[in-house]
């Protein structure tokens, strides 16, 4: 038999509907009590929801993995690609930072020596199979670079421009066995000829056999007419060993180049030499030894057991 309803049932239904409408009205009018009830319920429910979340999380993860299988794979691929791009960006950033530091130091040196320079990036290292040591830079005759111009880095002499093309130039490194530069010792101003040896070490042949050369002496470029191929005052390296063989016609010394030829990123080509010789002003400051802290331990004898007892 289907329910036909009665007055009591209808009245109850009407009362319930009116009550719900009353609640809606109160809530829409912003009665604080209603908000308080909701907030209180939510506060009470929060621990249950936290517990539920913890319990359900394995199921949720599984379900998410199943439903997003295709999307997850795509997302992984996308993230991998993003990761690679970010790694590359980071690497580029590191390279850029290193180049910036090199550029800053080379500009510092050029500024100190009042050299007019053209900055350039090293774009390739010459092949050593032909026993030459060269680099190629990304600036050429369009930038005012000509052959026989001094090339410096932030540490000192790098080499000399051998051939200048329109947009690039080949630089003969100071370490090249065929490289020769007129040099002088900072301070004593004794002169000699420094030649490359194929390594980071060069040999200085002094013209005066009685010159007193010491290990640690700074060697600078003597300079050429009109600053080509070498501008004066450019630091080259420092003496690491002196050969004072008796009976030798000339005195020689081993010189370690300041520039690190294997880590050249940015160099500068001196396109105009200063009007005055900078003399010894470009000699790099000697590194100060880092003080090693010493700890003194003093042993204090403890009181004898006899005195304690």
């Amino acid at each position: 038999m289907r329910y036909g309803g009665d007055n009591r049932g209808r009245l109850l239904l009407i009362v319930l509907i009116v009550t719900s409408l009353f609640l809606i009205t109160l809530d829409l009018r912003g009665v604080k009590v209603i908000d308080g009830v909701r907030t209180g319920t939510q506060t009470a429910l929060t621990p249950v929801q936290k517990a539920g979340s913890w319990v359900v999380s394995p199921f949720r993860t599984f379900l998410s993995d199943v439903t997003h299988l295709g999307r997850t794979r795509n997302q992984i691929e996308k993230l991998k690609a993003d990761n690679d791009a970010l790694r590359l960006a980071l690497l580029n950033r590191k390279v850029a930072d290193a180049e910036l530091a090199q550029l800053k130091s080379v500009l510092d040196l050029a500024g100190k020596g009042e050299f007019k320079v053209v900055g350039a990036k090293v774009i390739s290292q010459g092949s050593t199979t032909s026993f030459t040591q060269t680099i190629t830079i990304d600036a050429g005759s369009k930038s005012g670079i000509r052959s026989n111009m001094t090339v410096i880095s932030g540490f000192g002499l790098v080499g000399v421009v051998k051939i200048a093309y329109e947009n690039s130039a080949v630089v003969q490194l100071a370490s090249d066995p065929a490289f020769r530069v007129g040099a002088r010792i900072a301070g004593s101003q004794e002169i000699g000829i420094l030649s490359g040896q194929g390594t980071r070490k060069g040999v200085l042949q002094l013209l005066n056999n009685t010159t007193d050369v010491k290990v640690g002496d700074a060697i600078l470029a003597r300079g050429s007419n009109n600053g080509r191929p070498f501008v004066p005052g450019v630091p080259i390296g420092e003496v690491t060993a002196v050969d004072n063989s008796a009976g030798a016609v000339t005195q020689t010394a081993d010189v370690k180049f300041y520039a690190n030829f294997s880590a050249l990123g940015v160099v500068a080509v001196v396109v105009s030499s200063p009007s005055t010789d900078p003399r010894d002003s470009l000699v790099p400051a000697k590194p100060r030894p880092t003080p090693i802290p010493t700890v003194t331990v003093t042993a204090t004898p403890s009181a004898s057991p006899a005195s304690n007892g």
Partner: protein
Amino acid sequence: MISRRFFFSFPIFFSVYLLQEGFVTQMRLPVGGFSLILIFTLAWASMSTPEIGAVTGFGAGLLMDLSETAPGPLGHWTLVLILISFTVSFLSYGDDHARANPLSIVFLVVVGVVGAQIAFALLGLLLGQALGNIVQVLFICLGTAFWSAIVTPLILPIISRLHALVFGTASRI
């Protein structure tokens, strides 16, 4: 008698509400998932008289309105569930064929769930609530119907036993 029924019913519905808020909503099921309390209420109402159905709808709707996820004002779900629960119990009460057949109850519950959602959406529109894309609303309604059709037969025996415990064994399916 009424107070005894309420005394038993309230903890049952409150537990279902806690289950819904604490666990079911956390599952984040696809295509909208299901509302345990909605299914429970409508199944409960389908086994009850229209008056009990309406009161059940009132209580359950009030609980649903207290949920943080309820977008409407307090009383929104209450009004909807009063009407839907009353309708469901009105349709099933007195029809022994319907009440004795679990499939009929499942059907009533699923239709009731969809009806409740549509009524909720319509009332929400009247109250100025933003519902979004109509296709999305329909998609969620269909998804909820799908989940309800799966879940209702699974929990119907439990609801039936609990209902029998509160209202007497005569109502047990």
